[in-house]
């Protein structure tokens, strides 16, 4: 029994770290991993989703509806920003650092001025479940399921639907796609919007568990970038194993040596993984399968 208890506890910690990495990096995986836009405003899309979710939930609508609303609004905002700014930067991705940093400054400070320095939270639903004597947050178990569902849905979307195939074609060979009659401008807009919506979804999912402040997005940004980069060029092959490896390292180090080593260990692991596999995990995995 005690063994089961410890095993479940370990699994829970791993799943929790895994879910956090997967959910927070999904949006960035599309925008940065696929499109190559270095999006420093990723955290602000997350904040946008969280704020909308909290507002809608406080209107009395069910949390699921609120989270979807958060994702949709973030996605729409993303499409507008793509139209106005990002569209001009596809051929010079490094400049997107400056542009998105600017957007992030405007968003954080704008929210502070308009909505104030804090926002009331909405509370974690579902309560706790007791498993083998320890109690766990049920909502966090839901988040783990959500992370896996999200991976599956993204895979289906990009590999099994027409939109996905066209989107990948547009981003890999825009000229060819255009020659075949694809409205590439629209595809870029939609893909960026999808990335922003995924970031909004992350905000919505984590909104009930976090404090709502304009700078809340900053907690996500480093982990997101790190996961996407370790994953490598092909995000669908790389991101999930990257999140799994990093989550394992983080959960183990945190459990044994405390949060400091969890944090530092994650970053050191990134440096080491990139050194050993300069193309990221996906390049290595693909080489293995060839």
């Amino acid at each position, binding site marked *: 029994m005690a063994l089961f208890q410890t095993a479940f506890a370990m699994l829970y910690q791993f799943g929790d*770290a895994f879910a956090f990495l997967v959910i927070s990096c999904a949006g960035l995986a599309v925008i940065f991993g696929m499109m190559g836009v270095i999006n420093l405003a990723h955290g602000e899309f997350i904040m946008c989703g969280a704020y909308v979710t909290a507002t809608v939930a406080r209107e009395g609508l069910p949390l699921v509806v609120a989270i979807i609303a958060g994702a949709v609004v973030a996605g729409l905002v993303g499409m507008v920003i793509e139209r106005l700014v990002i569209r001009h930067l596809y051929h010079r991705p490094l400049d997107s650092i400056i542009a998105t940093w600017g957007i992030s400054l405007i968003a954080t400070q704008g929210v502070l001025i308009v909505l104030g320095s804090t926002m009331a939270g909405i509370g*974690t639903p579902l309560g706790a479940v007791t498993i083998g004597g320890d109690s766990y947050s049920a909502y*966090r178990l839901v988040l783990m399921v959500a992370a896996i569902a999200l991976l599956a849905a993204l895979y289906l979307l990009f590999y099994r639907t027409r939109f996905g195939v066209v989107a990948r074609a547009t981003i890999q060979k825009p000229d060819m796609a255009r020659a075949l009659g694809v409205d590439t401008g629209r595809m870029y807009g939609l893909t960026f919007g999808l990335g922003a919506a995924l970031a909004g979804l992350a905000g919505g999912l984590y909104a009930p568990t976090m*404090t709502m402040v*304009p700078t*809340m997005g900053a907690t996500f940004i480093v982990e997101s970038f790190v996961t996407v980069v370790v994953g490598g060029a092909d995000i669908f092959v790389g991101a999930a194993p990257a999140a799994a490896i990093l989550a394992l390292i983080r959960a183990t180090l945190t459990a044994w040596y405390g949060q*400091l080593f969890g944090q530092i260990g994650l970053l050191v692991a990134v440096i080491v993984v990139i050194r050993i596999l300069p193309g990221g995990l996906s390049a290595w995995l693909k080489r293995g399968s060839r």
Partner: protein
Amino acid sequence: MTLPMRTLRRAGTLAGLCLAVTAAPSLAQEGEPIKIGVLEDQSGDFAAATNVKVHAIELAASEINDAGGIDGRPVELVIYDTQSDNRRYQEFMRRVLQADQVDVVFAGFSSASREAYRPIVNQFDGLAFYNNQYEGGVCDANMIVTGAVPEQQFSTLIPWMMEEYGPNVYTIAADYNFGQISAEWVRQIVEEEGGTMVGEEFIPLGVSQFSQTIQNIQASEADFVVTLLVGAAQASYYEQANASDVNLPMASSVNVGQGYEHKRFTPPSLADMYVTTNYIEEIDSPASNDFVERFRAMFPDEPYINQEAANSYIAMNLYKQLVERAGTTDHDALREVIAEGDVCFDGPSGNVCLDPQSQHMSHTIFLAHVNEDHSIDFPQTWENIEPYWLGDEGCDLTQNDPSAQYTPSNPPNQ
């Protein structure tokens, strides 16, 4: 008649002229405003807790000016937004002292920002009020600290909690100076009182995911948890602990009184949290209610009036008193007044006095208890708690000025 009159008048003008010439500096000073620099984080990470400090200073300034100023001189505020950025403190502390030539500065939220500007205040021999609760230990003649320090908050809180809930204590603290030093105080007091530390965990700033920590706490035999968490990210702990049914009473010196978490989080995530604070707006005394009323009359949208707001307001009034008693804004003269040991102010939080040895402030410490529905009650109040530690350890600013920050493991007399 006319001649003498004229001569008299002329003599009068002459005398007046002479007077004007000799009295020119003091006369100019009489009408000239007293400039007060205000460096607070109105944007960035700390904005939630610090915007209200600026408002409290503005409130005090307008009240002082309406009542005729300080010693007949109006107060003029020079306010800069430091954006929660230590570099901005360095830039603007130089600016207020060198370019704006202010008489006194009210500055700083985080301890890092205070340490960033302190060398500059010392270099220009300026005077700065630090109106924030912090980890204690600053022994610097150029600094006056009105915030509460650990000996005031923990020597009251921890024994009370141990008596109420039991001797087994688990501390989680932010992994930096404030958290580590506060945790040291908690450890020391728990041992003195015959309790046991069943766990102690330090969380790097910016960490927002606490599953492992929560599990460690649940596995321990703790009777209550001391939470010394700092910053928006770490505040996520309460929600997550509540969701995992930790159900232990919490004790803290930072929450509620600073970041009004009980207003921002959904009940009951902070239920059974006990905080020692020297002021919060729920304190139900005539002076406090009056303060809240005046505050909201000027700033109707203020989300919360926290202890730092009260400290800033008190600091303004203390400075007024110092200048009026010294008859000048000269720092040495002001410090001579402080050395008399009776600089006190009866304000929103009760009567408080400046301690000449450390230039810290005594406080009435309120034990605030957060209920299920996040309303506050006060099971206990301790009056006139002195900031005794620095003085006991040998910091005496009336004798010498080491301009240093000490910690329990690195005291002044070593």
